């Protein structure tokens, strides 16, 4: 019933996508590292792109002689920017291969491709990376971008780092061979509930990364004399804070919906809509933490740093919920399988 050829193909695509992501991550970091630090000046005042690359690898003047074997007629962009451009292209390729792996897995087993830990670990990362590309795309459109494109682009590595780690973990420790679902999972609710949970987790992962970077950046903004090497290259704390907030705000209704859909499924599958199963409980805890985050944003004295810490804590609970609860604690969700 499981198509082994397709399943092997899916595994191969999965491994390939991890490699591609790692490459993209290195390119992002290359751009990030060679980008110019902007100190603490307000970003919005900075003319777009004008200053990028000044600290990068020296580029040859167009007139300083032809480069043998190169067909580029245009004056070259600074290295850092070229890294960034490549990084984005490579990320897109990675997403395509990754999505292919997931879809083929679904075809191979003839069911949704998120029936066990390996599969939803993979799907969550796909969402996080896609979320990143969407942000990048939206920010690079139009004049209203709050920060310069290359500077934002340099953040890609920080999104891909946890994503690649999670993917690696999913593909090794959590790997499960393609197989059928057990009866409790055979329901149209798996499409609704699990996909909502995957999307939420992926986007919240992005939000959490933004909050971490916010704290790093804030530290360098508060110590202009001793700026951290990473901090000074990041977009302004305002921008990072806004990313974290908007991502959380966007996904909070989805996460709420995911929990409620889970309760509706539990009502059909387990005979009650809520039973304080460890997974249910932990999801509720994460939800409450995010509610606290939104409250903190509206409470004076809690906005900046404290709110960011709450957001990070929320992500920690989500990840804990994903791994620890599924693997270590026995509950009704344990069948998700390794």
């Amino acid at each position, binding site marked *: 019933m499981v198509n082994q050829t397709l399943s092997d193909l899916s595994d191969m695509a999965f491994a390939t996508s991890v490699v591609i992501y790692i490459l993209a991550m290195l390119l992002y970091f290359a751009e990030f590292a060679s980008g110019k630090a902007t100190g603490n000046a307000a970003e919005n005042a900075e003319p777009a792109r004008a200053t990028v690359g000044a600290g990068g690898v020296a580029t040859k003047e167009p007139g300083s002689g032809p480069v043998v074997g190169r067909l580029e007629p245009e004056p070259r962009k600074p290295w850092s920017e070229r890294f960034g451009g490549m990084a984005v292209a490579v990320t897109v390729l990675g997403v395509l291969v990754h999505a292919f792996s997931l879809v083929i897995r679904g075809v191979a087993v003839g069911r949704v491709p998120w029936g066990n830990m390996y599969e939803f670990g993979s799907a969550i990362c796909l969402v996080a990376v896609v979320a990143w590309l969407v942000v990048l795309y939206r920010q690079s459109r139009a004049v209203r971008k709050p920060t310069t494109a290359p500077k934002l682009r340099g953040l890609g590595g920080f999104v891909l780092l946890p994503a690649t780690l999670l993917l690696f973990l999913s593909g090794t420790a959590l790997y499960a061979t393609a197989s059928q679902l057990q009866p409790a999972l055979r329901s149209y609710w798996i499409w609704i509930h699990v996909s909502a949970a995957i999307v939420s987790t992926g986007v919240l992962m992005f939000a959490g990364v933004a909050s971490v970077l916010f704290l790093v950046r804030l530290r360098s903004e508060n110590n202009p004399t001793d700026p951290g090497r990473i901090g000074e290259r990041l977009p302004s704390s305002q921008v990072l804070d806004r990313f974290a907030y908007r991502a959380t705000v966007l996904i909070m209704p989805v996460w709420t919906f995911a929990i409620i859909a889970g309760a509706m499924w539990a009502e059909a599958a387990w005979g009650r809509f809520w039973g304080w199963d460890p997974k249910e*409980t932990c999801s509720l805890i994460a939800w409450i933490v995010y509610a606290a985050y939104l409250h903190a944003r509206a409470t004076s004295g809690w906005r900046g740093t404290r709110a960011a810490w709450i957001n990070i804590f929320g992500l920690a609970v989500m990840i804990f919920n994903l791994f620890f609860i599924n693997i270590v604690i026995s509950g009704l969700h344990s069948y998700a399988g390794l």
Partner: protein
Amino acid sequence: MNTSAPRRVLAFLRNTWRGLTSMRTALVLLFLLALAALPGALLPQWSLNRQNVETFYDNHPTWAKVLDSIGAFNVFSSVWFAAIYVLLFVSLIGCLVPRSAEYLRQLRARPVRTPRNLERMPHHAAGTVSLSPDEMSDFARRRLRRWRVAENTEQDGTRTFSAERGYLREAGNLVFHFALVGLLITVGGDQLMRYEGQVVVQADGSGFCNSGTYNYDSFDAGLTVDGTNLSPFCVRLNDFDVRYLHSGQPERFHADIEYQSGEALDNGNWKSHDLRVNNPLRTAGDRIYLTGNGYTPIFTVTFPDGTQRTKKTQWQPVDTTTMLSQGATKFDRPGMSNEQRRHNNQLAITGLFAPTASLDGKVLSSRFPALRDPMVAVDVLKGKLGLAGDTGQSIFSVDQSLIDSGELNRVARENLAVGETIRLDDGTTIRFDGVQRWANLQISHNPFQRYVLVFAIAVVIGLGASLSIKRRRIWLRIKPLADGSGHTDENASAAGGGGASVEIGGLARTDQAGYGEEFTKLTDELLGSGAEPTAGSSGTDSPGRSS
């Protein structure tokens, strides 16, 4: 010294109330709630899994005692957990009531007047247009049609617009928080009125009627349920089957049941239902779930006097992957008038059942959960079982103390395939006739659950509205362009050709995130309106876009 005691008490109460209903308190209480729920996820809970708690007791006896005494194995019914959420909800209601009143007041109020200095606003733009102030005002009016607008003409002829939008945000927020209160109340109500029972039914057309709690193997109910008013219905289980994959993983459980409820109870009509995991039967306000299954080995005992008894007692799976089961099928000796003698001549057939037998010497185990090659490995015990009136006795085992005291003795040990027989010394024969399946049904009654769902949906909608809608303001100040000829502003605008200077300010009242885009777009349209002076024609919202 001059404040009287009652006043001080009043002041204290007022301060406490203010503190309790402040955002900061709400934040702290939310945190506490998350923290307090944590042991409920990490530690085993009595209500979920007694066995795990007992294991914990075995492994950490002292810790377990301490934790148990503070309710850590019973978090969600503990006093401290309740205290936190009750405080939180008191705080919530104390916060919501004044906020609702304030919201209603705002709904009737006009947008605030245009501030003197729009440059100070977080969003600001200015420019000149070729339209006259009148035309510009017309245009602005149309462009701001979906906003709540207040217009004003200042003494020097300057026109101002103050517009506000996104009132639904606060409405969504209030709906969301009120729905949380509704959720709490309905869940609480459900806790009082619910019941849930478990019953094993043999898959041979046996049935179950929800006529009283005595029909259940176990029953658990809310405080207001005394078992006299259960929803009337009957079910019977005609067939039960499980499909397994080669790996032994179950692929599908399927119970073929019939049921009757309401009027059908009187006229004897049965309806059929395909009971599966994820597909419960909903009838008479109750839900019937398939929650477990197992095998029933059937034994026939022929006593020395020729009387026969056949019994079908469910055995309990000890390993759900192979369905190796254990149990005890118990017989009373018929035709013995002497009470004492009858009780000392009871029989029990206990041991293991394997649906697909695998023998290692004489030791039976099961290779596969489906019924391929059934076999039992049994001990036959004779003596005193203590059946009559002994309520505490498990149907799956015999009382070990009776064996220890010698009142119950093993008289045979044998492996039997279907159709095989054991003959005891006294001439009694025991035949393993075959196997049938049983299913465990759970009957659940949650009268409030639909209301819980309604509030849950309100939570999502309210949250969505509250988080996606921005409450924002925009102000316009339109001045005629001075043409230097000393005309009054009035004349200049009447002349129509002078153009106007427009200053725009914007403010998002809740969170600045995300207003910039809309503001930029809006100002582009408003300020671009001079580029293409078609403002007089109707229907175009955007006479000209800049850039």
